[in-house]
């Protein structure tokens, strides 16, 4: 077993364990921190895939923004968390069966894929981050999807501010 295989297994087991913790823990603050750990483990797998930009993006966007947002909302709504109460609803066994079935189906379907056991080819010699940046602003490449996503993200964030801030107690229910 080579060094990168050992690294992969360490981070994969860490990631899956923390992911399981984040869906199973009663205390939502602990679950959120388990999610942060899992996102870091996934960032390590991106590093093993040599997708350097996404290691940074995972740390900055997921851990830096999304996870902090989740922790903030958990803190804001903390009074209602009711740790003593059950955290799963009565259909949870059905959800577990469905999730296991879909995982097994995905694994079975993917294992029939022709390139399933392929090993990693060499990267082209040039810098992948520069090539990604070129592709994102190339009109014959991905300029239009890139701009569409930018506009979507901006409008969604403005909408989120409106939704979250639109019902102040002093102005009545709106």
């Amino acid at each position, binding site marked *: 077993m080579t060094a990168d295989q050992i690294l992969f297994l360490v981070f994969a087991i860490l990631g899956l364990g923390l992911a399981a913790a984040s869906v199973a823990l009663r205390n939502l603050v602990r*679950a959120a921190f388990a999610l942060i750990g899992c996102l870091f483990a996934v960032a390590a*797998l991106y590093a093993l895939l040599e997708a350097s930009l996404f290691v940074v993006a995972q740390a900055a966007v997921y851990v830096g923004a999304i996870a902090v*947002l989740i922790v903030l909302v958990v803190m804001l709504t903390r009074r209602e968390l009711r740790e003593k109460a059950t955290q799963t609803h009565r259909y949870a066994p059905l*959800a577990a069966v469905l999730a296991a079935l879909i995982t097994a189906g995905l*694994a079975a379907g993917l294992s029939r894929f022709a390139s399933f056991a392929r090993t990693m080819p060499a990267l082209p010699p040039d810098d992948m981050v520069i090539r990604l940046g070129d592709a994102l602003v190339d009109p014959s490449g991905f300029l239009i999807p890139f701009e569409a996503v930018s506009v979507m993200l901006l409008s969604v964030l403005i909408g989120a501010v409106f*939704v979250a801030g639109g019902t102040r107690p002093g102005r009545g229910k709106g």
Partner: protein
Amino acid sequence: MIPLSWYLLFAAALFGIGLYGALARRNAVAALMGVELMLNAVAINLLAFWRYLDPGRMNGQVFAAVLFAVAAAETAVGLALIISLYRLRRTVLPEEADLMRG
């Protein structure tokens, strides 16, 4: 060398865990965390397919970048809805948001 299958099986397992979290948790924030896990599994698949099948072209990386933006948007809207629901009803449990129940 790590075969492609390891990444695909890891992503399938992560997707399953996230799906369970999204479906089984009563708390809306916890369900949203499950959705984050599912989106991460998809991003791993996209980057693994890029790296193993077609590292010369940028399609897989661009897809993953778009997915990151969509995940950020989804979280922002989801958490804004949760805060709005909490202000109106003092709850973060979707089952108690029954204003439109007939």
